[in-house]
Structure formats: structure tokens, C-alpha cells
């Protein structure tokens, strides 16, 4: 499997970024749900994981975007209709925006609450905003709203991939699968 992308398929590093971020986002959702039920130290610990994974997503997002700009983007199949292309472009743009916006709003929530962000207890990120209750509530609401948008766009993204695979019978899904091979 090639390391770099080609115009026909995703390279292994792009696939790694994609699936690693998928796994992290699902983990993030599970931890956040659990943390809501916890109190005291247990909540602090759960949120510490949430923050560490979230900052990992942010770092991966930076690397991923850089890698995307340095590589060819595989084209959609020739039969893809213009409206499908437009929808794909918009949803990809939104997904890229969200893998930055989710961690950044989370980071600002932490700073606003004076609960600075550590990365797996190894180092501490600087605060983005000064502690303020109002900022916290704004960022909290935005973080939750963005998550809903993320779920919506991700479902559309999955639906699109499945349509390519099962209805259009092209290799758009296959070329992003971890061990998928494209003829």
C-alpha cells in the first residue's frame, strides 16, 4: 500500500488519519456520556481522558490537513453527479472544520473554567481564554451544538459512502478502507 495518496486511492497515512480520528471521536462520545453521570474525582479523571483524546484529535487534524494539502486528493468516480460532488465537498469541508472546532471549543471550555488541559499528564497546554463563567457556558453550548452537527454530517458521509459502494458500485468506499485495494 502506498504511503502517499494517488489520484485513484488514498495512501496509508491518509487512511490512518481518517480511521484514527473516527475511533477517537467515538471514544470521545462514550467518555463524555459517562462523565455526565460521574461526580468529583471520577468525573475529573474521565474528563482528563476526554481532553487528552480531544487534543490528540486536534494535533492529528493539523497533521491531516497538512498532509492533504501536500498530496493529490483521489477523485470521485466519473459517474458521480454534480449535486453529489457538491454535497461531498460541503460535507468534507464541514468534517474538516469540525475536527478543529470540536477540540478548540472544548479547550476554551476548559480554560474558561480554570481547568487547564493536560495531554495524558505529560504536558500542559496554555489557556486559550481567561476564566469566566459566561465564556464557559457559551463554549459549552457551542461544543454540544457542534457535536450534533458532527453526528448529522458524519451520518450523511457514511450514507454517501454506502451509496457509492452498494448502489453505484464504485470503489469510493473501498479505497478508504484500511486494507481495501483498488484495481
Amino acid at each position, binding site marked *: *500500500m502506498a504511503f502517499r495518496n494517488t489520484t485513484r486511492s488514498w495512501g496509508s497515512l491518509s487512511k*490512518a488519519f481518517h480511521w484514527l480520528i473516527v475511533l477517537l471521536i467515538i471514544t470521545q462520545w462514550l467518555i463524555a456520556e459517562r462523565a455526565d453521570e460521574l461526580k468529583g*474525582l471520577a468525573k475529573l479523571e474521565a474528563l482528563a481522558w476526554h481532553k487528552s483524546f480531544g487534543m490528540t484529535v486536534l*494535533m492529528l487534524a493539523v497533521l491531516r490537513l497538512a498532509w492533504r494539502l501536500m498530496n493529490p486528493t483521489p477523485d470521485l468516480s466519473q459517474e458521480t453527479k454534480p449535486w453529489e460532488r457538491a454535497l461531498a465537498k460541503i460535507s468534507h469541508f464541514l468534517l474538516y472544520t469540525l475536527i478543529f472546532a470540536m477540540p478548540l471549543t472544548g479547550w476554551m471550555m476548559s480554560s474558561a473554567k*480554570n481547568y487547564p488541559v*493536560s495531554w495524558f499528564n*505529560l504536558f500542559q497546554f496554555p489557556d486559550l481564554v481567561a*476564566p469566566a463563567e459566561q465564556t464557559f457556558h457559551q463554549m459549552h453550548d457551542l461544543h454540544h451544538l457542534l457535536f450534533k452537527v458532527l453526528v448529522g454530517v458524519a451520518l450523511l458521509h457514511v450514507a454517501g459512502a454506502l451509496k457509492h459502494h452498494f448502489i453505484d458500485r464504485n470503489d469510493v468506499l473501498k479505497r478508504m478502507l*484500511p486494507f481495501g485495494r483498488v484495481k
Partner: protein
Amino acid sequence: MTNYLRFLGATLSLFAVACHASQDAAKPAAAPAAKPAAPGAVSAAAPAAAALPHYSQTAANSALKFTFEQAGASAVGTFRKFSTTLVYDEKNLAGSSLDVRVDMASVDTQEQERDGMLKDADLFNTAKFPAATFKSSSLAKRPDGSLEAVGKLTIRDVTHDVRLPLTVKPTATGLQLSGKFAFKRLDYGVGQGEFKATDSVGNDVKVDYSVSLAKGGS
């Protein structure tokens, strides 16, 4: 693909370790407790303290900050209410003294839920121990010429002998007293129950104070 992931992981952890190391190097050393008195610190028997100038804390320009570790990150809190009395004569350090009283319920970490948790029985237990105090019997000079207050620090019901570094600078209206020291919260029983564990809430606490003093008062 596994190789690239490994490479990515290794790069990230190298970066992390580098940052961690530099953070450690920046940590100030803890104030040594119960160190023998510096030679030459006490020159003569102290005359009655009443004869020495008294200074007390003014409302403005005073701050008592503490840095605590939680979930691998350090955050800063303050105490809104505390009072300081300094008896100070640079020519009579043995007769000088420093008294500080901190209203533990005035803790402010910019987050009400956490402030509430701090005041609860497992941490400060402000219902039972409303104040933390530092009472010094004398001031002394360290070998490097800087000042320290020799005395007893009491938090909750636990008292330890400590020597707190301090700097005294004259101002237009009196003196500005400042200093930094560190201690372990568990040495003073701050952390009962689940808070005895130090992996989520660190044992190290750093204190940074700056107090504006005016002549007079008790």
C-alpha cells in the same frame, strides 16, 4: 500502516517528554522545613517586640495565590480574605515576626463547584477549620542574604515548623512583602478519603503571595 502509526506515536511522545522535562526544570524547590538556623542570623537577644515597628495588611495590592495540580495540569486559585501582621526591623530580625491568618472559606478557583468541593470535609473542612495560620517567632537571614520567617504553619489541625522565604521592599506607604514557597498538601491532612490519592489531585501546592503593608495596626 502500523508502522506509520508507530512513527506518529513515537513523534508525539517525544514531543510530550521534551515538554514535560522542561516543565520539571522550571519547578521551584520546596522550602526546606526545620533547617538549622543560618549562622549569624541571631546577633543579640531580642528586645521587646512592642518596641519594633508594626505593619498590617492594607486592602489593596495584596494577593495570596496557590497553584495546584489536577488531572496533570496546574491551575491557580486565590484566597480572597487573609490578614497579615509584620513586626519588622531590619536591624533586629530576631525580634521581628510575621503573622498570617487565611480565611479558608474565601477560596476562589474561578469555579464554584470546585470551591465548594475544596471547602468540604475531605479537603479544607472550613466548617471545622475556618482558618489557616502562619505564626513566626522570628525572621532570619539566609546564607545568601535573603530573608525567611521561622515559624509554624497550621492548616486544618496540623502544624509543622517551616521557614518561609520572604522579600520586604519599602513602598511609598509602607512595605511590600512577597515570597513563594511550596508544601505537600497531605502533610497537613488536606485530602481525606478519595483525595488521599495524588494521581488526580497532586500533592504539591505552591504558594505565591504579595502583601501590601502599612505602618500601624496590631
